[in-house]
């Protein structure tokens, strides 16, 4: 089962979990599965039209999904998805 890694800023929206198991054949399906269980996460991962934000990057293992098919990219059971939002603190 693929897993979704969240940064600490988003874990309160997922009952404190920083790694969530997800089901789905594609990145988009895996995200759909996660936001069904944690609806508050939805607007932090994709915009209201379901499109990716330019300030939140999602990696499939260590590849930016934009370069490997976006939300349509296929996922395998042992894959790791990671949500990496832009942060600006210094």
């Amino acid at each position: 089962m693929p897993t979704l890694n969240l940064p600490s800023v988003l874990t309160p929206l997922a009952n404190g979990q920083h790694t969530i198991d997800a089901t789905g054949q594609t990145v988009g399906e895996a995200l759909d599965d996660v936001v069904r269980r944690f609806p508050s996460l939805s607007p932090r991962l994709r915009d209201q039209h379901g499109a990716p934000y330019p300030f939140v990057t999602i990696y499939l293992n260590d590849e930016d999904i934009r370069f490997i098919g976006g939300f349509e990219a296929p996922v395998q059971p042992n894959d790791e998805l990671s949500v990496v939002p832009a942060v600006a603190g210094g």
Partner: protein
Amino acid sequence: MATSTLPERGTGDLAPDEYIRYSRHLMLPEIGVNGQRALRRARVLLVGAGGLGSPAALYLAAAGVGTLGLVDFDTVDVSNLQRQVLHGTRDVGRSKLDSARDRLADINPGVHVEGFPVRLTASNAREIAEGFDLIVDGTDNFGTRYLVNDLCVLLGVPNVYGSIFRFDGQASVFATADGPCYRCVYREPPPAGLVPACAEGGVLGVLPGLVGTIQATEAIKLITGAGTPLIGRLLLVDALHWRQRTVRLRRDPECPACGTREIHDLSDAEQLCAAPVVDEIDAVFGAVPEIEPTTLSSRMASGETFEIVDVREAYELAIARIDGARHIPLASLELRIDELSPDREIVVHCKAGGRSAQAVRRLRAAGFKRVWNLAGGIQRWSKDVDPSVPTY
């Protein structure tokens, strides 16, 4: 032998006592005398002398970088000292540049410090950065980060990037000849208000120490040509659970900065911080209505009742709270909106007014008409109404 791609400047010859000072570098084959001379010749510009800039400046000075430029317009505040280790308690109230000069001169009097006591803007950035070999991004806001990135792309100098939030850190090297730039990864900044400001979000004091020293490491590697810099890789650090990994970054041919080169000129940070999403919401629902703390206090004293809603995190309540406020963290607002009655007058507050403004927008979008943002948050309440409430 390692070779740097940065420009050479002078011989960088070392004085006799410097062979002792830098002996631990000279013993490393990856640095050696040539690398130490390259450090001596190097000119590094640090934008920001705060959390990230502190460790970066300390280590780069100790390492023997010949010229350190520092850009910072701020003064040392006591709340900086939890993480900005370049400054001390006796420096509170001084300019960060004066404080930094003294500390860096003590660490290494051989380093020349050039201070720029201004905010980096589109109009002064080129002039300030001219002649520096690389820029270390230690800024604390998206606008200046995009400005630094675009500046580096336009000038063709590496952007040694680091950024932090709460327990999470990122580091990379952007804008090299063949590598991606920051806009290849994050095309645009988030709308203001979608992510909390550092002052509201908090940060583990050690975290800028971790990330700032990574930036110093990368700067030294670029200068000396040692090792493999973080070009085309983003280092992610989660200090809370100690997860660390790198992900691959690619140069985006459609990047407006380094790909299509649509960005010819620098834009002001304020413009980049403009928030189209928030603007749209404001256009539909009007600007966020505010109530001054003194007005709220006097109206309550005259017998009016309000539902005061505190949208901060639970740990912030332990620091300071307004008596009688209902606690609904911003992230839970939609789920707990039924606890609020549209018939009551509602005043929403957070620490400084940013998160509560988002809450007011959401409540107004949900049909609440009589809802106000407490101007300046609990900080202003403490200052103007009840000084017994601690500020943080």
